[in-house]
């Protein structure tokens, strides 16, 4: 009986200890932009069974956090990017989602500090879980994942479509320019529309369907003219930023990012 009591107390202490704080990272790297406000922070936890936890966060990830695993490889680390967690809100709700990643990178000393080289670019195309609050409705589990996946598919389709545009880099880097491009009827035209242009009326709002035809590929036109893309944009602006940032950060194999070691 006494042993049982001791075991229970021990278990409780163990649980309390586990809940207390995250383990202090043993290594911390930041990008070489602004030391006070780094765009990317990579933290490696203490090793356990040869592997350490990896956490990447920072404004460049648009509020997302990457989790993974790091193993010592000579002076550097071999890194596996396994999961991305993302959260964003808007005026009438929020969205929380996670993606499973399948990417690898190496973190090695470089002449100017450290270099994170993407060996296998992680793709953000496998949402793993999602929860959504829309006004007072909560959508979780399979339904949440399904609805989030559709939205993510649509955003990715638009992002891919934009990549072929001549001013793609300007659009992807400036959310204001992007929204003017996507929805000039609301955020203002760069050049005034032709008088008498074709209109698609949805919920009392007239979409310029001539503009849609000129600037969007066939599968996306119905999405814009129905107001679906506008809702995707208004309800998940952070997701668009993530889609663009992801391509810029880890878009292709062999991308190298310069980091510096910032002792934790």
């Amino acid at each position, binding site marked *: 009986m006494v042993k049982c009591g001791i075991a229970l107390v021990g278990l409780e202490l163990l649980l309390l200890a586990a809940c207390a704080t995250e383990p202090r990272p043993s290594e911390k790297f930041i990008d070489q932009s602004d030391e006070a406000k780094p765009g990317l922070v990579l933290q490696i936890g203490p090793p356990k069974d040869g592997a350490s936890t990896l956490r990447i966060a920072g404004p460049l990830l648009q509020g997302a956090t990457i989790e993974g695993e790091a193993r010592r490889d000579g002076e550097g680390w071999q890194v596996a990017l396994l999961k991305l967690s993302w959260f964003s809100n808007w005026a009438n*709700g929020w969205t929380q989602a996670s993606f499973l990643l399948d990417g690898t990178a190496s973190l090695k000393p470089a002449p100017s500090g450290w270099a994170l080289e993407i060996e296998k670019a992680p793709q953000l195309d496998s949402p793993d879980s999602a929860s959504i609050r*829309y006004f007072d409705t909560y959508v979780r589990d399979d339904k949440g994942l399904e609805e989030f996946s559709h939205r993510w598919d649509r955003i990715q389709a638009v992002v891919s479509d934009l990549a072929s545009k001549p001013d793609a880099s300007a659009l992807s880097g400036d959310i204001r320019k992007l929204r003017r491009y996507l929805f000039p009827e609301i955020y203002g035209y760069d050049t005034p529309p032709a008088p008498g242009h074709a209109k698609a009326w949805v919920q009392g709002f007239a979409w310029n369907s001539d503009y849609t035809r000129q600037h969007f590929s066939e599968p996306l036109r119905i999405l814009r003219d129905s107001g679906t893309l506008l809702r995707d944009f*208004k309800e998940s602006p952070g997701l668009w930023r993530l889609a663009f940032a992801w391509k810029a950060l880890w878009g292709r194999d062999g991308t190298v990012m310069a980091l510096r070691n910032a002792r934790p």
Partner: protein
Amino acid sequence: MVRSVWIIVLLLAAFQASAEVLAVVLDQDLGSPLEGVQIRVQGSDQAYMTDEKGQVELPSPASSQRVLVTATLLGYKTVKKILATGQVKIVLEMSLEGAVEGQELVVEGTKPQQTDAQGGLSQVVTSQDIQAQTMGIVEDAMSAIKTLPGVGYTGAFDARPSIDGGDPSETVATLDGAYILDPYQWSGTYTIFNPDLVDSIKLSDGIIGAPYGQVMSGLLEVNSKTPSDTDQHLDFGLSTTGLDLFFQQAFGDQAGVLLGGKVTWMEVPLALIGESDLFVTDPYIRNATAKLYWNPTPNVSWTLDGNLDTDGVAIGVDGITLHLFENETLVSSALKVLVSKNLLWNLMLSYNSFDTDVGFQAPLREPDAPPGLISTDSTTQDDYRYQARTSFDWTPNESHVISYGVDEMLENWSEGDNGTSYPGARAEPADFSPKPFSSNLSGKNTLSSGAYVDDSFTLVPGTLTGEGGLRVDHSVVFGGGELLQTYPVVNPRLRLTYTFLKDWGLIQSMDVNAGSGLYSQFPADNEYMDTKNGVTSLDLGPTRSWFNVVGLDVQGTGGETLNLQAYYKYYIDRFYTATTNASDPNATVLKYDGTGYAWGFDLGAKKQTTFWDFSLSYSFDDTELYNPGGPGLSPSDASDPLGAWYYPSYQVFNTLYADLTVKPNDEFSILTQATVASGTPTTSGGRTNWQYPVDVKLDWHGFYSLSKVRWEYYVGCEDVFALLYFIRPTAAASFNIGFPIPSVGYKLSY
């Protein structure tokens, strides 16, 4: 023994090591198996290929709990799916490349109960509608009901509107299915329906189906929120005079709890405007609510509701103190059992008590009276109601839902009058000694019973639908050595809806509806229900009305709605009181031969867009009543004459509401509500003032950065132009208080 266990463990481990997962790949649109699909498993470089059945065996994930499975096939969109340890089968559905899911899959919350709105029967307001309109000294969900077509104007301080020209008492309210004795607070100023508690309200003002008894002009079905999310949720609201706090949590799919309440803090705003001494007891409301549901199996659902509502005020005017205190308790339990796939059994039990204390304290002001003498009077009423309802909903085929059931309502009512009086100078000689008085009227018990059968039918799918039923009601009054019975009444009801136009230009659908029905209501708490007041058993019947309605509903392709409804209602056996001696309160007789009629029409139009919402509601009503009286009888109430047609006090000829909400962006909205009411006719032929209040509400809301906490601020003002009105000195009365009423609110929700 230990050895055997080890062998089993090793065998299991061996089995685990060699376990495989069956992957099946299908064409998403056709459902056919896809051959030659390349499958890759995260952490392995090996590729697998599906056979002609679209199947392939993959190694079970062993090292990590979840791995990614990727399926690729030329011409198809690559599909990735999670495979968990222990999973024995994974199905991957692939669609042709280039297909992007469209509008119908946009994240969108459904509006609860919205589909319950039916032409010729009911209108529904959701919690979103209620939150958008809520403001005022006390936030009340009723404010969203008051602007609906068919609802007569009442002003800001009366929550008891006339529905389709009926007496406010002809409208019955239910909370989660249980009838409520008195859902009002501060003697009818507001209701107990807190906007944070309510999920939706359905106002049935058409041909109400046979399942509902003791209702004549309107049925207000209030549904409280049902926690459905396993995360904990909090709603906190701080408004002009009150503080609300509600907590919700679901436990899996099977159970959940809602707890919450409201307290007012009028002391603070009164102090702010320098009127701390205005009330002897500052107006207060203290409400608490609890809801618990449990679905032990998919076929059984059980709900327990508890509500405790108290309110009161005492005001001192020129040394005289008037007080009002009210307490209400409602406990209800509902059980639904899906007996078979086409038979649902419902059971509802409830207990409801309501007590009031109204009275005064006044100093005796007679020239010769010694100082310090106080007259007091306190009238208390206690009402208890026990309710049991059970029914079966049988769906023999897709075209019919047949309901049959019985309901019993036992109500006990009593009244007490206590105080102290002084004969004073009226006595000879003058007597200034206190004369305590105490009288108790042991109320009768009233048992109201009903049985019904009702059929919601579809004659031509999508074109001709309806509801028809028959209801029998009967009441027995007993107690005090008496037994009074009403004659049983039969209430048939029928409503038809014919959709004659679909998908024509900008019109999505257009339908007409018509219906007719008999309704009855018995006043269980009438203090004169006694043979000494002229009531005779089996001669007595409930008040009845014959209600007829015809309407037109138009649904536009852009979500616009237009509703027109006209009605005619005829009353028979209506109760009223008269007196044989105006100076003797014991000479009152209860009559039940009153008649009357109400006719009118109403129009509702609604349009919602991305940047603005507009709704228009217009109601016209003409109600006139007739109390025949008899020889030697005089009216006991000057406003209800005998032998002459008269307009009841609640009647309003014209009520017009125009609501415009401008939404420049998702965070900000401005609601402007303009009202015109033509005033109430009086028995003398005059009218109260025309009313044209304009209410404005500015709302700003959003979520705190990177958090799930929602915030909202609003500033509202009711009757903003009140000070500019031209006040007619001859007006008998006014609905409103004559100056603008500002209100503010701050809400947090997690």
